[in-house]
């Protein structure tokens, strides 16, 4: 069992959890993910690593209540435990000194962008973080991101904080200042990553996205997470989760992501009834 040793609400329906998993914490690197199974009857779901503490032996994940499994995980409290917590999985981010980089995080995607921004900053990059959310209330980890970024650009859809607009507008505002951007990391909802990729493709700025498709085992065994990247089939779990955003077939990925929507909805009706996880 893997104990929940820290729990903090970041926004409405978004929760940060510290999980005791020393073996995972010892090896975790930015860009990697874990597979979590909360209860005996739960699904195995992939969650990107937000942070890790090798001394305390903990791994931090951030979860938003968007479906049956995530709703139950978001309800987890200190003292509870997960039956399985597997990782680290996937290929880590390739950290080096690229020069000037943009770390673009949208919504929940700010959580996985955090360790990447920190590592890029430590590697000597000038890190400009562009964070987006629907509104001020839903913008998470602003302070943490400020601590690992050289510059910050905040975007909200409704203009309640920072500039009004999407993260692509934020990227545009950076470029308008004449900043030469070497590489962009963009993590967030699929539709946001597609927008960023479409925006940067004609500009020829290398853009890396982190895909979070449906998975079962997370070790290359099932192929549920397959994507089309540059016309080739790729397994996000072992060949990703990061890919060249200009080559990812987002249309396909979005369709695959909602394949089990009906089943998900059916299961979700059970969250209220059986919230304790039976």
């Amino acid at each position, binding site marked *: 069992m893997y104990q929940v040793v820290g729990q903090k609400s970041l926004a409405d329906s978004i929760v940060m959890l510290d999980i005791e998993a020393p073996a995972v914490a010892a090896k975790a690197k930015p860009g990697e993910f874990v597979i979590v199974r909360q209860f005996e009857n739960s699904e195995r779901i992939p969650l990107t690593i937000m942070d890790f503490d090798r001394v305390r032996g903990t791994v931090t994940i951030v979860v938003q209540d968007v479906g049956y499994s995530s709703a139950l995980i978001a309800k987890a409290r200190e003292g509870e435990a997960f039956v399985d917590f597997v990782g680290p999985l996937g290929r880590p981010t390739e950290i080096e000194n690229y020069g000037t980089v943009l770390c673009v995080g949208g919504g929940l995607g700010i959580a996985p962008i955090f360790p990447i921004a920190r590592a890029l900053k430590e590697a000597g990059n000038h890190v400009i973080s562009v964070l987006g959310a629907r509104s001020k209330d839903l913008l998470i980890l602003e302070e943490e991101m400020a601590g690992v970024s050289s510059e910050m650009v905040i975007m909200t859809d409704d203009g309640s904080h920072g500039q009004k607009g999407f993260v692509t507008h934020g990227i545009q505002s950076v470029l308008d200042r004449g900043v030469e951007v070497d590489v962009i990391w963009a993590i967030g909802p699929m539709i946001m990553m597609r927008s960023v990729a479409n925006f940067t493709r004609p500009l020829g700025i290398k853009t890396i996205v982190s895909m979070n498709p449906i998975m079962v085992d997370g070790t290359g*065994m099932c192929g549920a997470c397959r994507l089309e990247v540059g016309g080739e089939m790729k397994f996000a779990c072992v060949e990703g989760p990061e890919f060249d955003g200009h080559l990812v077939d987002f249309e396909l990925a979005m369709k695959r992501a909602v*394949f089990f929507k009906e089943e998900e909805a059916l299961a979700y009706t059970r969250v209220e009834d059986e919230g304790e996880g039976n």
Partner: protein
Amino acid sequence: MAAKVPRHDMPCQDPAIRAKNFAEVALGYSPEMAIEEAKRCLMCKNPRCVEGCPVGVDIPQFIGEIVQGNFLGGAGVIKSKNTLPAICGRVCPQESQCEMKCILGDKGEPVAIGRLERFAADYEMAQGGCPMEVAPSTGKRVAVIGGGPAGLTCAAELARAGHGVTLLEALHVVGGVLMYGIPEFRLPKIVVQKEIEVLRQMGVRIEVNQVVGKVASVDELLAGGYDAVFVATGAGLPYFMNIPGENLGGVYSANEFLTRSNLMRAYDFPRYATPLRIGDRVAVIGGGNVAMDAARTALRLGAETVSIVYRRSRQEMPARAEEVYHAEEEGIRFALLTSPVRINGDDKGSVVGMTCVRYELGEPDGSGRRRPVLIEGSDYEMPVQTVVMAIGQGPNPLVTKSTPGLELDKRGNIVADEETMATSKPGVYAGGDIVTGAATVILAMGTGKTAARAIDVYLRKGKSL
């Protein structure tokens, strides 16, 4: 005279009933049936059946015990060579191993060795099992990577020899293909877990959720106090056909399909949260045991029609005859000499059908089987909502890629000495599908056993013992 008694059939659940449940199909012999079947054995002085067994079970001896009504004794004879008899009695392809060599088979039907093995093992299990004897501790430690048939067998043999064994499993349950792949109706999971419990009693330490290559590397295990490592990570990477439409929703690899159903218990959704959507019409591509398992699972999950789509003929099918027979009895259809060239979807990205082509048999190919030759202009539409790709698996690269100095063949399998299963890396042995490519449970067990013997010698001689 004994030979004139016909082979005793195994009682099975009625096909119409079992096609709707996940309970075991084959019900097993009663003690009376087992004794009668055992009496058919001629007790050959030079038993050919034993040569046909990859782990060398003394078959006439265990059958002799059953004739005497000493079922526990029979189980003991088997277990001295085979650590997982209740599993092997169910899933070994006896017809191409021990039973193929049985002299009764020359003129009639061979002794039902597999069924007798299962009977003895089940009998012992029902009695609470017999503790396995373990040699005094050698103080040596071995890490076994992968908890499938090869890893379990190697772990048991090493523990029996007195070595300290840690079994590292990537999934949350140990058993490998026995748990995620082979369905409940063919191999009840309680049987697998009971056999694994014996390993625990022998002192094998089992650690789940350990993805070696990510959480620790082989080199780190060797540096961290293990004297040897056995790699048995299996054939984990599913193959696809590389045809258009394969990424549509509703196309599963057999691994995904079976893992959702068997390991994650999607058949009990939503009590278990893992979903598995089945259309009314299901096509399973492939002709092996995995294809049969997937097809029969789809039927039990509520599909109206399930078709095996295979590009050669019935004769070339690699599945066991018994599995094909059971599938057919349950109403699985066979679209033989047929293969999809494209999977078609709707605007939501879900499967609505396959465009298939037909073949005829030509000259034998490299595998000795007649090559399927395309019939020009034979393409037709097959309406289906679910497609399961059961065309084989390749080696999982997580361990091999993170282990420098490990020689691989061009397909990515580990190169290991046949006699010892030693790899190019000192102290590292390998077995099962990661060496042989996708094969059978018993073949994997055979390599695990061979490796255990060699590791035992290595630990006693190679180090300061």
